[in-house]
């Protein structure tokens, strides 16, 4: 029945078109199938990238469509690299990336190691631990804002209960000293499960016979951990660090929801500065140059890191 329908369709196809389709090579067919994706990628990824590179050399402003666009050469780049506020934003970003990665890796790996013990109910606890990661950053940002609220927030009351400091004095989001840590805590709470999951995959990929051989050689648990577990899980840990590093370098939503970059500019990470320049101050050329600098920085660092990762894997 199906064959008959196909035959009917083939017969109904006009001859010139049928000839064209029948005459298409395998390579041609492959191109035919992937060309929509390539065109889409070119339109939404590659073209905007080149367009942003072009704009970064101009004084273009998206809110002044009638203004003459002047070529500024490298002036935007010079201005950014000489801008004190930009360097402060980069330092804030580096501080945020460093501490979140450190905490997430240490806690994530520890949790993975514990879960890997396969104790009673470990599957249930794995699911519970994964819950924060499944939430939307917008939801997480909003409810942590309430948790941090000094007058009604649960977090302030817990701190107050433990330390005896009045809850109204625990101003996590208003204090210059505490606000960066408030964001680091939330990001760690949300994304540690992700690191844990990757580390768990690494730990489960270590063949059991290696541990058995180590047992035969009377290696202590400590020795097994340092000589087997950690080296063999290292590529996975490094992969998790890479993913979280790239994600946190461009962190925007959580910071925007929790502090908006404040108090003052204390938590103004690079992506917040970029958004302000691009869509609030409308300095499109300038912000394009900043975006390109950030892109090159992330791309360069990621490349160096991937090379290191490959070396570790080859060992």
């Amino acid at each position, binding site marked *: 029945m199906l064959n008959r329908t196909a035959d009917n369709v083939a017969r109904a196809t006009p001859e010139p078109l049928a000839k064209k389709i029948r005459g298409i090579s395998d390579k041609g067919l492959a191109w035919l199938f992937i060309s929509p994706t390539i065109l889409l990628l070119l339109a939404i990824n590659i073209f905007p990238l080149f367009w942003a590179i072009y704009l970064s050399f101009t*004084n273009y402003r*998206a*809110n*002044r*469509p*009638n203004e003459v666009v002047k070529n500024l050469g490298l002036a935007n780049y010079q201005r950014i690299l000489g801008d004190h*506020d930009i360097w402060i934003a980069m330092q804030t970003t580096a501080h945020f990336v460093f501490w979140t990665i450190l905490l997430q890796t240490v806690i994530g790996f520890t949790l993975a190691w514990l879960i890997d013990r396969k104790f009673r109910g470990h599957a249930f606890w794995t699911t519970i631990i994964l819950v924060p990661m499944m939430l939307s950053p917008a939801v997480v940002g909003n409810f942590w804002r309430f948790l*941090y*609220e*000094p*007058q009604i927030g649960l977090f302030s009351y817990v701190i107050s209960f433990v330390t005896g400091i009045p809850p*109204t*004095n625990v*101003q996590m*989001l*208003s204090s*210059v000293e505490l606000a960066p840590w408030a964001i680091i805590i939330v990001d760690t709470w949300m994304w540690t499960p992700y690191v844990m999951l990757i580390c768990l995959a690494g730990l489960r990929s270590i063949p059991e016979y290696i541990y058995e051989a180590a047992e035969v050689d009377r290696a202590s648990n400590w020795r097994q951990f340092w000589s087997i577990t950690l080296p063999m899980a290292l590529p996975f840990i490094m992969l998790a660090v890479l993913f979280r590093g790239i994600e946190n370098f461009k962190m925007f939503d959580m910071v*925007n929801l929790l*502090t*908006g*970059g*404040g*108090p*003052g*500019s*204390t938590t103004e990470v690079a992506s917040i500065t970029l958004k*302000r320049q691009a*869509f*609030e*101050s*409308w*300095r499109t050329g300038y912000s394009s140059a900043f975006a390109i600098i950030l892109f090159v920085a992330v791309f360069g660092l990621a490349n160096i890191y991937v090379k290191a990762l490959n070396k570790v894997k080859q060992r």
Partner: protein
Amino acid sequence: MKSTLKLALGLASAMFASTAVSNVAHAEDLTLCWAAWDPANALVELSKDFTKETGIGMKFEFVPWTNYADRFLNELNSHGKLCDLIIGDSQWIGGAAENGHYVKLNDFFDKEKISMDDFVPATVVGYSEWPKNTPNYWALPAMGDVVGWTYRKDWFSRPELQKEFKEKYGWDLAAPTTFDQLKQIAEFFQKRQIDGKTVYGASIYTERGSEGITMGAMDVLYSYGFQYENPKKPYEMEGFVNSEKSVKGLEFYKALYDCCTPPGSSNAYMGEGVDAFKSGQVAMHMNFAFTWPGLQKDENVGGDKIGYFVNPKGPDGDQFAQLGGQGISVVSYSDKQESALKYIKWFANKDVQAKWWSLGGYSCLNSVVKDPKFPSSQPYAQAFLDSMAIVKDFWAEPSYAPLLQASQKRFHDYVVAGQGSAKDALDGLVKDWTQVFQDDGKM
């Protein structure tokens, strides 16, 4: 069977035709864009009369304040056709006029005999004119607004508090007339127990993301002697923006923030202020007048419990207030400009403006606000009138956005984060603003 088929076809055709007719009717609908807030609801109610009179339907696109500028400036910059009418912020007027986003209304006003002399002068300058103080009109003053203060009249009138206050400060506890008095009252109430609850002095603007802290700080700075530029030499800011008086004003704002605001007030704007006042946390509350009708009706803090006062005087007796509010404009990319102009004509009508005020909107028409019955029409009417007489506004230049971003950063860094001194903040502001005007080729 045939007849059933005919019936089905007939019904389908009728349905198609009715849909088409309704689509034709909807095609004439006007879309009005504004912020999502109480006055917008009043405007929806008011606009039903316009639809009744003209048959033109009204649709509304309201966006929360925090996204209002981003959303609609993007729409205008991309020459979008979403909005036929827009109630745009006062500071947008320069950019919207110079970039051709708004239809110039001079000829229309002349033809329809709509005179700008019939409107409160400050609102005409603030919402309609570009360049400022020239008869070039791009909007009809739609919603008068100004920063003022509310206070807990019920707390202020408690005999035991009055007695204690008088003993401490030597004057009667009442709505303040100077900023020094305001700070004393705020200090008096800070962390005081009232009805078993800890209360605080004042809620002020500290928001970082959009325009909050600039509106709040400027509201104080004007009365301390801040000026945007040399009145004799435009764009000359050195010695005006960062004058000694301005420095004192900014120091005062920081002192008020440090001593007398509720905990966690580092990012507060209109909504947070209303929440603080409504929940009985603060004795005084800085906010735009549009919040007053809602607070007056509030069961817990409204009615007899609330009082209103004009922005207090500075140390030299100067008294100004930050202008808010907006004008209504016809978007030049709209295909329905004729209908949109009909709406403007209807909205400018005296009776419509009177109803606008009665519904909770703030009319800018002289015949409404100068009516002898106006001051007693609402408990806050007199404070609104007095405030509108002393307004000043932020830059309305086409580059208002980078100018605003600079002040947001400088003020927040100093007032909330405590970085540097007031002098540093204002010197930095002069530097930033100079850069913006140099980029614009104006300096």
